[in-house]
């Protein structure tokens, strides 16, 4: 988006939009993905990724990481949760050549892997629990639950996108009856929640949903910033203003559809409660009306009498008999003539005011009493659906990019860039677009997806601007590898899990990360560093800081306080898990200890509001975004408030106490054993001799000091960095 504005302002610098746009079509990312041959002949047991990288690598890479480091790395990367001490020992004790592969398979099949990668995807899908004017906020977490489930089932990526755009899988849209009648098929149960992707963008103007959809889809799935084409033709990429508004027209028919998720019994009960309320309230309201209406009338007449005579005439006319012009005048004066409650209140006599207040109180009390006792909270979800009336409306280019300013000069037809000629819209506009978008022939779709996976595993994509494959962002570091992975995604039937597995089982992924010699002239690392200072060829594994959510998870996991229940509503970090209503509340409520646990950071509420801080302090401190816009890569900061959280927050204190309790429970007064376990729980390794000694000196034979010792471990660099 930022880029988009640069383009906008760079307009005058550019010779001609058409020339650039025509040139644009030859850009690498718009060329068909040609599956490159894997270099080096017969593959044997080699991972193709390593072959591509070894060709371009001019330096000898680091040796493989030691097994404990590797196990911790792959655990934290794939699930965000470290290996248990038992898993650590089992892996070290497994001499079989496929020991690592077995771990990878186990982790990929773990639901917690889906939770972690759902969080990655939700960053680019701009998930938020609250946003300015976000109508779809209630129930939006069901979309997150859907994403988790889809990833856990390894729903093919093309369908992952299809369902979020259309609510259906592409081959399950229509059905034929025995008599040859084609009709729309019922979507699979649960798939409707995927539409949270579109409904999340709905704002006050219905066109906002469409514009939000175009902006998000183009950057997230196409890696194209089309937003600047709102105002003019894209200066560097082949996207015209017409393209933008054509895409918008695909989504313009969509409106929110509110779905009630309650059972029939709940609905009946709610209806009954409301009827009861109205029955009891009616006489009170009648009495109040009788009291106030004459006063309202008097005030209104007095206001009207103050107006110029010609206006008075208009106002006194019954609405139906006013001309269009007269109605405009009447509308202009409406705010002046409106009589608010406080104005009535001012002129009431003390007696009447008291009476009015009593009546109002009775009405309020009654309302509240009935809400408290009878009416269940009706859960809802906002899906989207095409409105036939809106579908018939002609759409236009909005040169102001402002949906509230209507323009009717330049009509557009639904469509999208890169495609010319007639489009078959028989199955629906969005459906036709989704078919094009997710087609194996779309050069951007698979490239952008595999690049994101690469970035989530290595910290940086092969193309370093994950949401912009346009002209201004240069070329990927390893174009052949990117294309090979893209073709592999398609070849595997769009299996994301297949790509994850390929990446994490590569030798490249398993390299050591140390760079200790890099600043010593003459060392091999110094040579590597000089040759490839940005580590673009991955001669060493890049060390990464855990994201906010993973820090939260690791802290509570080590303390034995992490509740890994999958799905459910978001939680405020100040609030204890199990308090909020949960879709699987049966599991939450089983034991008392569960209630004191903390749910995974992926479920921590986030969002944006003018009136309150909707993203918790903790998430903001550790660089999580509020979900307003797609976030392809989080900012990475190292700040004092982060240090203060780890040093002094009640969360860390609580976790340190809990970890100490866990150590005492396991090791009793055997402090060497406690130290050993603590290192295994917090850092996934036993302490080295020196560390053990230092720890025992600090503990000074006092098990009460274990809690402060736990604090030390939580504040280590190694705790929040993955080597």
């Amino acid at each position, binding site marked *: *988006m*930022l*880029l988009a*504005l*640069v383009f906008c*302002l760079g307009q005058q610098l550019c010779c001609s939009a058409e020339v650039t746009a025509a040139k644009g079509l030859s850009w690498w990312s718009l060329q068909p993905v040609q599956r490159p041959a894997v270099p080096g002949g017969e593959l044997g047991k080699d991972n193709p990724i390593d072959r591509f990288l070894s060709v371009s690598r001019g330096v000898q890479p680091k040796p493989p990481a030691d097994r404990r480091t590797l196990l911790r790395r792959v655990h934290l990367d794939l699930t965000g949760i470290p290996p248990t001490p038992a898993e650590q020992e089992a892996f070290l004790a497994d001499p079989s050549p496929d020991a690592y592969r077995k771990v990878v398979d186990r982790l990929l099949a773990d639901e917690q892997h889906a939770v972690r990668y759902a969080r990655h995807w939700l960053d680019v899908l701009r998930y938020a629990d609250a946003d*300015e004017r976000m109508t779809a906020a209630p129930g939006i977490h069901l979309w997150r639950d859907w994403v988790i489930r889809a990833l856990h089932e390894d729903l093919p990526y093309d369908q992952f996108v299809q369902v979020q755009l259309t609510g259906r899988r592409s081959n399950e849209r229509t059905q034929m009856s025995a008599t040859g009648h084609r009709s729309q098929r019922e979507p699979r149960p649960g798939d409707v929640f995927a539409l949270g992707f579109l409904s999340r963008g709905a704002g006050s103007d219905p066109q906002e949903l469409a514009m939000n959809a175009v902006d998000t889809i183009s950057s997230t799935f196409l890696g194209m910033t089309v937003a600047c084409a709102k105002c003019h033709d894209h200066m560097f990429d082949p996207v015209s203003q017409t393209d933008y508004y054509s895409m918008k027209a695909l989504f313009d028919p969509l409106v929110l559809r509110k779905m009630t998720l309650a059972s029939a019994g709940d609905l009946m009960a709610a209806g009954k409660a409301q009827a009861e309320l109205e029955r009891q309230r009616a006489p009170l309201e009648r009495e109040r009306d009788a009291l106030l209406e004459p006063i309202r009338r008097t005030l209104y007449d007095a206001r009207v009498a103050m107006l110029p005579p010609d206006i008075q005439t208009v106002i006194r006319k019954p609405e139906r008999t006013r001309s269009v012009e007269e109605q405009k005048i009447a509308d202009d*004066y409406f*705010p*002046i003539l409106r009589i608010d409650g*406080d104005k009535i209140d001012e002129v009431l006599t003390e007696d009447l005011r008291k009476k009015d207040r009593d009546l109002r109180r009775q009405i309020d009390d009654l309302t509240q009493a009935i809400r408290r006792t009878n009416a269940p909270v009706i859960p809802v979800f906002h899906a989207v659906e095409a409105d036939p009336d809106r579908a018939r409306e002609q759409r236009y280019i909005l040169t102001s990019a*402002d949906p*509230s300013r209507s323009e009717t000069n330049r009509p557009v037809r639904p469509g999208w860039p890169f495609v010319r000629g007639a489009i078959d819209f028989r199955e629906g506009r969005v459906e036709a677009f989704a078919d094009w978008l997710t087609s194996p022939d779309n050069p951007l779709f698979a490239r952008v997806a595999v690049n994101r996976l690469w970035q989530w595993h290595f910290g940086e994509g092969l193309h370093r*601007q994950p949401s*912009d494959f*346009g002209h*201004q*962002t240069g070329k990927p570091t390893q174009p052949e590898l990117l294309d090979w992975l893209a073709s592999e995604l398609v070849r595997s039937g769009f299996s994301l899990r297949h790509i994850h597995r390929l990446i994490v089982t590569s030798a490249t992924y398993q390299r050591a*990360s*140390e*760079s*200790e010699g*890099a*600043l010593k002239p003459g060392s091999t690392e110094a040579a590597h*560093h000089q040759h490839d200072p940005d580590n673009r060829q991955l001669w060493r594994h*890049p*060390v990464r800081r855990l994201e906010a959510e993973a820090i939260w998870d690791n802290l509570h996991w080590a303390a034995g306080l992490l509740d890994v229940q999958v799905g459910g509503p978001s939680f405020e970090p100040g609030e204890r898990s199990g308090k909020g209503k949960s879709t699987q509340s049966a599991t939450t409520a089983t034991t008392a200890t569960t209630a004191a646990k903390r749910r995974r950071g992926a479920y921590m509420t986030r969002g944006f509001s*003018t*009136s309150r801080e909707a993203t918790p302090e903790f998430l903001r401190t550790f*660089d999580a*975004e509020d979900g307003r*816009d797609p*976030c392809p*890569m*989080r*900012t*990475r*900061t*190292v*700040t*004092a*408030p*982060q*240090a*203060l*959280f780890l*040093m*002094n927050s*009640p969360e860390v*204190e609580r976790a340190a106490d809990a970890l100490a309790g866990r150590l005492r429970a396991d090791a009793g007064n055997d402090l060497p054993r406690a130290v050993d376990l603590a290192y295994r729980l917090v850092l996934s390794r036993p302490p080295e001799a020196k*560390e053990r000694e*230092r720890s025992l000196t600090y503990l000074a034979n006092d098990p009460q000091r274990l809690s*402060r010792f736990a*604090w*030390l471990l939580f504040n*280590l*660099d*190694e705790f929040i*960095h993955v*080597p």
Partner: protein
Amino acid sequence: MSPDSLTRVPHNASAFDRRQFLFRAGGGFLGVALGGLWAEAGEIPNAIVGPHLRPKARSVIFLFMAGGVSHIDTFDPKGNAHAGKLIDAVGFGDNLAAMKRPVIPCHRTFTRHGKSGTPVSDWFPHIGGVIDEIAVVRSMWCHEGNHFPAVIETCTGHRGRQFDHPSFGAWVSYALGSENRNLPTFVNIGRPSSPVQLTGGYLGAGVSATPFQAGPTPVPNLHPPEGLTARERDEQMELLESMNAEFRARHTLQSAIQARTQAYELAARMQLSAPEAVDFASEPAHIRSMYGLDDRHTEEFGKQLLLARRLSERGVRFIQVCHAGGGNGGWDSHGDMKTHEPLCRATDRPIAGLIRDLKQRGMLDDTLVVWTSEFGRTPWSQNTTGRDHNPKGYTSWLAGGGVQGGLVHGATDDVGYRAVENPHYYSDLNATILHLLGLDHTRMELSALGPVSRLVERGGPIREILA
């Protein structure tokens, strides 16, 4: 620079290599790469550019009255000659419909104060008492007529939020850094109207506002858990350093790991210095009284301003104090102008006290005090005795730090609707503040992004009010 250097770059920036994210200083591209910021051992982020000009002000106390103060009832008297008349008006923002609106009377009395004789309404008697220090600009305007968009426009210099523009204080913090290694550079006190007023935007979280509150815990997680002595914590920190040493040595190229030392050091220094900064024990009774700490109406804001002075004194560069923030803001008096009265009372004595206190300490010469809202209020009401939002003409004022006091500059029309004489787009105010801090607004941009990244897109300092 090393590959894993601290990257404080817009996550969505893509037109340039993040490692060339430079700040344009002077006439050329003398910027300092951000990652280098932390590289100097023991230094907290400090001046990236330093001043371009000779600075008049060292520190800014920015008083933001959330919701829109009525200039007509405070600093811009109009008389009541037009009261009751319908006047031609247009909607604001995107609703430009023509309409007729009735001017409502102003019930304030104005008194000419000081040598300058600048008129101030009876709602601000104490500010009237220091009016000779103040330059009143009666001809401000901005585009946006709703609270949130107007707050964004005035504090980031750009309309709309989608480009993640930094707030004004973040720019200043980024450009000049702090004078005090123990405290942040940009501090916010009080509840803002919007988180946008705190954001570092694409300049990164490192220059975003650190919220301080008056009271024993000015910053979240500032205090170590109860029962932990300073000696024990020192012992822990020392041990932590040695336990970290090996890991750090193994990952010498990871500057994000290396930078943690500095982050912990600043945290530890803040732990020591922030409580002292917020501790008013050393403030004598007459000072507390100046700020109104002895009156329940003025106590809260008074404490915030006293804290602001103490932070300014300790070298915090930009102190933003938000009054009545949250939601639309407390000053949003649509229903009845009388709702302005308690807000004026809550702020009048503390603000005057702040100016007097700065003056007597000799701090007013290099401390700039700015008072403003996101917009003003209309001459008419919406069928009430209150006033609507008015971005077309409103008042801001400045005092100290190189500003000529006792001035009135610019004017609105006969009813206070539009700025007509020397109109100043709000960014002229921002340019003025930058100028007084020794920064040239035309050079305040990120070179890689060009004009898009400017804080001030047009206009310049209001030269008529400079001393």
